[in-house]
């Protein structure tokens, strides 16, 4: 039921995820954070099987942190996404695979470029200008096709995100009420209110 969106713009990536934790037909919690800050310039929105999501996200978070401590510099977004994909690809070939879908957004401080990766539980990875997971993707991807601009300013990017969220609210039966939005750019990661 989780919904997550992400899009790139000129020098930034916006990552958004709903904040509902539900079980069956019941909303259990309305302020769940489903976007992990993996490093000063790396974000990861996670969705999928409850339990697997948090477990896997924490596993990734700690391994990325360990790499940074051991090797003095942080993994670049492309390398981090590749490692995460590899971990999921190994996982699905194990006895108890993680069922987790991800959007990994980051700003590469060595090449000064924003990048976004769409990753699913099968170990598929794609570098994308925008991406979405969950029921929201059925509504948002066509909007993003129409309105996404890789050269957009942050305000324009947020407008496009609002369009996606509004469309989901209008058309989806089980639309979530609230979203958390995080941004990563040259200055690092920050959370904003829509």
């Amino acid at each position, binding site marked *: 039921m989780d919904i997550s969106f992400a899009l790139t713009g000129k020098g930034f990536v916006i990552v958004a995820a709903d904040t509902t934790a539900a079980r069956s037909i019941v909303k259990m919690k309305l302020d769940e954070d489903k976007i992990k800050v993996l490093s000063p310039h790396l974000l990861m929105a996670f969705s999928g099987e409850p339990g697997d999501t948090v477990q896997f996200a924490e596993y990734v978070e700690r391994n990325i942190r360990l790499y940074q401590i051991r*090797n*003095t*510099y942080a*993994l*670049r977004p*492309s*390398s*981090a996404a*590749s*490692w995460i994909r*590899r971990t999921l690809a190994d996982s699905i070939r194990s006895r108890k695979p993680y069922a987790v879908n991800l959007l990994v957004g980051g700003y590469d401080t*060595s*090449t000064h470029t924003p990048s976004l990766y769409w990753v699913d539980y099968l170990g598929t990875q794609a570098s994308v200008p925008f991406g979405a997971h969950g029921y929201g993707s059925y509504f948002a991807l066509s909007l993003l096709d129409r309105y996404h601009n890789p050269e957009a300013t942050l305000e324009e990017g947020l407008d496009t995100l609002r369009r996606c969220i509004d469309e989901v609210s209008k058309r989806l039966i089980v639309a979530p009420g609230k979203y958390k939005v995080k941004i990563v750019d040259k200055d690092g990661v920050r959370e904003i209110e829509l």
Partner: protein
Amino acid sequence: MNMVTERYARYLAEHYNEARRYDSRTTIFSPEGRLYQIEYAMEAISHAGTVLGVLAKDGVVLAAEKKVTGKLLDLSGVKEGGYGGSGEKIFLLNSNVVTGVAGITADANSLVNYARQAAQKHLFAYNEDIPVELLAQRLCDLKQGYTQYGGLRPFGVSLLYAGYDVHYDFQLYHSDPSGNYSGWKATSIGANNGTAQSLLKQEYKDDMGVEEAIGLVLRVMSKTMDSTTLGSEKLEFATLTLDPTTKQPKARIYKPAEVDALLVEQGLAKKDEDSEMRAV
């Protein structure tokens, strides 16, 4: 004397020879706090062929002196194929790292193999070329292990790594048998490395381009090598630059003919004795 120390004294007396043999075989501290096995390994390296490295702003240059030469050595396999060089001193570790080795060649081959595997493992896990410092660290972790674990001899090899990555651009590292490594603008290992380093210190300039660095390396090499003339049978040479179109690191290990052509270009080529005689 109590029972325990008495038994220990008897044990020592009975096993004295065995204990002494064991001491010399493992890397343990001497009473003065030194690790002789490591020092001996470094000594072995200071007799090996010189390896020189110079870091320029748009590339890195490596040169190495070959010791295994002679008229009867079959070098026909060296002229073609492979990455270039003769496979004695300079090796390609990954598409972004070239190394020059000094010391026991057999040990070096083993380390080169290990480094290539480490680089490929990194590529497999992270889908990027291994950062140069990380590769140096991987090798040093291995080398350090042999300064501690008993019964084994350390690697008798020092390496120079010439590499490129997006974190620090062009880089030059040196690592020794103890597992220490350090970054340099210009440095040298092997025989006469003291002379080479003082020459480098005098002539190195911070804003050097790769062409200038090639000249510097060959000049220093010609002064430090035992033989009076430079030629491809005594010299291995490599550069690491950025490909102008792809912006990707491009390693070039010169083939013997290319080394000779370079020496002619730099005016350091071997003089043809016959023509000299005729001129006189």
